[in-house]
């Protein structure tokens, strides 16, 4: 029996992985070859996908990118014995793009069968939970605090402090809510972990429940991710069946229940209070803070709301200790971040690295420059509310504070690359238009400011009273930043102002008037 791995990750499916798998299946059946096809996650090297990895006596050997019509020739060349072929790549783990990573959260993604509990256990799964079951809630929270883990969703709030608040909030019922409404363009790390290693998220949430005394968890998943939903539900079912979820976790007498709930295509529901409203079955209107969700959260009870990657980073922290995790990174940005390279880039994909790489290293050493071969002109980091970074700032290290110093955000680690054909006035206008479409409408700066923002940008581009309208746009952005209830209105000016400051010529403005 030869084991062959072909990914079930959405992006790989979008490139024809199912066709490759069925072509291989058919060829093996008709040729009497004894092959087991494992549908794994993706290692994140998407320009090489669909990847076919064969388990040989000398380790895993990869071929890619493979299309279904390549299968007969590959078999003929001796793919099942790991022999040479033009698509031969050798061991993926030896490629620089993979080898230079620090895979902590993504340690198993692309390697294991995502929905096999046995495979999870065989690859160090559930060791963090076993440790946590022997610890006091305070000690679990202390490990997370010591790790330096900060929210990977955007605000970068220290996770340990949030957990401690919920731990100390007296209540009969508490909740763990996983924000799986990853809606930022250029980000797909949540999707990849949920599709490629759903048990790690389940384990992280279970540990969070033990840490603060919450017995119910919800994964609020965006409806655009049907494959992630299927993988999560299958894994949750297995976790229940084997005593990893339920009323008596591994005989400890402690309980934790978990359910996936679907969103319905509203970007604002990625904001934590909107998300809670949506989970309660309402429109996703932002709530006033305080009270914080940690005190008054879901159904009015103390609630941890954490992003997928934050929660999926918890098992390794509880397995290897807070210090192990903290030793990666720089400054106050500890541990690793799964970076996602997208847009106009030669080698798009996901790689997990300790904080501190510069944008230039990411774009050129990993990304290989633009896909079009033209110069990279602007890079948007951290989703549609993130700033556009110009070439002059590419040496900024990826670190929350360093990005903050150039009025940019790291956010969720998504990096969208644009070459020199991009029209930055158009991108600024789009940012405002997006806010018009996605604002929950609760507060005026965001609801009305975004509509006026589109109009003012149009007037500048048309050349009508340029100076006055440019000042008006800056004032409007200032109002949105300082007057909005949440990050939707408060950060929409980031892409707009960065475009205006770094690329004024695209607005028909004098480059010399650059206010940056």
């Amino acid at each position, binding site marked *: 029996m030869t084991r062959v791995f072909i990914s079930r990750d959405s992006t790989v499916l979008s490139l024809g992985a199912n066709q490759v798998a069925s072509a291989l299946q058919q060829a093996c059946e008709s040729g009497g070859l004894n092959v087991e096809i494992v549908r794994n996650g993706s290692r994140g090297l998407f320009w090489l996908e669909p990847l076919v990895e064969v388990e040989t006596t000398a380790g895993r050997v990869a071929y890619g990118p493979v299309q279904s019509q390549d299968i007969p020739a590959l078999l003929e060349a001796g793919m099942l014995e790991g022999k040479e072929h033009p698509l031969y790549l050798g061991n993926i783990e030896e490629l620089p793009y993979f080898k230079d990573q620090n895979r902590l959260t993504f340690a198993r993604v692309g390697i294991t069968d995502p929905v096999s509990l046995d495979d999870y256990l065989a690859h160090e799964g559930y060791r963090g939970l076993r440790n946590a079951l022997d610890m006091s809630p305070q000690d679990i929270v202390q490990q997370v605090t010591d790790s330096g883990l900060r929210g990977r969703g955007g605000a970068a709030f220290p996770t340990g402090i949030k957990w401690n608040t919920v731990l100390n909030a007296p209540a009969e019922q508490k909740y763990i809510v996983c924000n799986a409404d990853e809606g930022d*363009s250029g980000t797909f790390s949540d999707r990849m972990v949920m599709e490629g290693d759903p048990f790690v998220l389940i384990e992280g949430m279970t540990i969070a429940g033990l840490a603060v005394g919450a017995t119910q968890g919800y994964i609020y998943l965006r409806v655009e991710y*049907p494959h992630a939903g299927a993988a999560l539900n299958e894994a949750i079912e297995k976790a229940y069946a084997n005593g990893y979820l339920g009323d008596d976790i591994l005989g400890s007498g402690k309980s934790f229940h978990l359910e996936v709930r679907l969103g319905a295509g509203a970007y604002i529901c990625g904001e934590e209070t909107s998300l809670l409203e949506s989970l*309660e*079955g309402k429109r996703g209107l932002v709530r006033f803070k305080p009270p914080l969700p940690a005190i008054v959260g879901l159904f009015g009870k103390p609630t941890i709301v954490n992003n997928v990657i934050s929660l999926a980073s918890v098992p390794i922290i509880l397995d290897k200790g807070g210090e192990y995790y903290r030793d990666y990174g720089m400054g106050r940005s500890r541990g690793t971040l799964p970076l996602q390279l997208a847009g106009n880039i030669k080698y798009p994909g996901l790689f997990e690295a300790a904080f501190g790489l510069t944008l230039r290293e990411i774009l050129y050493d990993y990304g290989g420059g633009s896909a079009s071969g033209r110069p990279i002109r602007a890079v948007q980091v951290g989703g549609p509310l993130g700033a556009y970074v110009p070439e002059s700032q590419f040496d900024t290290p990826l670190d929350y504070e360093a990005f903050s110093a150039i009025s940019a955000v790291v956010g969720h680690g998504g990096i969208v690359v644009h070459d020199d054909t991009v029209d930055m006035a158009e991108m600024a206008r*789009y940012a405002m238009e997006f806010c018009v479409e996605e604002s929950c409408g609760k507060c005026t700066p965001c609801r009305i400011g975004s509509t006026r923002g589109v109009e003012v940008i149009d007037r500048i581009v048309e050349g009508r009273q340029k100076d006055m309208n440019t000042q008006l746009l800056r004032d409007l952005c200032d109002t949105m930043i300082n007057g909005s209830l949440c990050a939707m209105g408060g950060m929409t000016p980031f892409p707009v102002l960065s475009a205006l400051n770094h690329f004024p010529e695209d607005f028909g403005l004098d480059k010399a008037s650059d206010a940056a």
Partner: protein
Amino acid sequence: MQDYHLQKNVVAKILAEHESMPGNLLPVLHGIQDALGYIPTEAVADIADALNQSIAEIHGVISFYHYFRQTPPGKNTIRVCRAESCQAMNGKTLEEHAKKQLNVDWHGTSADGEFSLEPVFCLGNCACSPSMTVNNEVYGRVTPERFDEIIANYRGAVE
């Protein structure tokens, strides 16, 4: 438009299944849209009744979320991504091509009833932009030519 009389039982069954679930409105709406393809206007009163909320509240929730629809979709729903990553890879050309080929604008259904066209903000397939989905299938690196091939396959499949 179907006669609601026939759909009413489906709605009642879904409401009954979710009766004791906390925060059940979104799961109910998903259930109805999964079963019927849309949320019939007449169902709003039944939902409001079962959940002890006003019709305005239920309507407010349905209209707030982009995913829910109140008219029947075409046989296949195409969702084209309009987010920045796809824009960086000629997504706008794909958007225009899709509209032209189907002769519809966003939220429209082609005259033959085969395809509904919806805009979507990010499918998480940003590493292979531009992207789109047809029903639940994701397609990456979609050029106008590839769009035509994909659509032709669906057209063939339903006939």
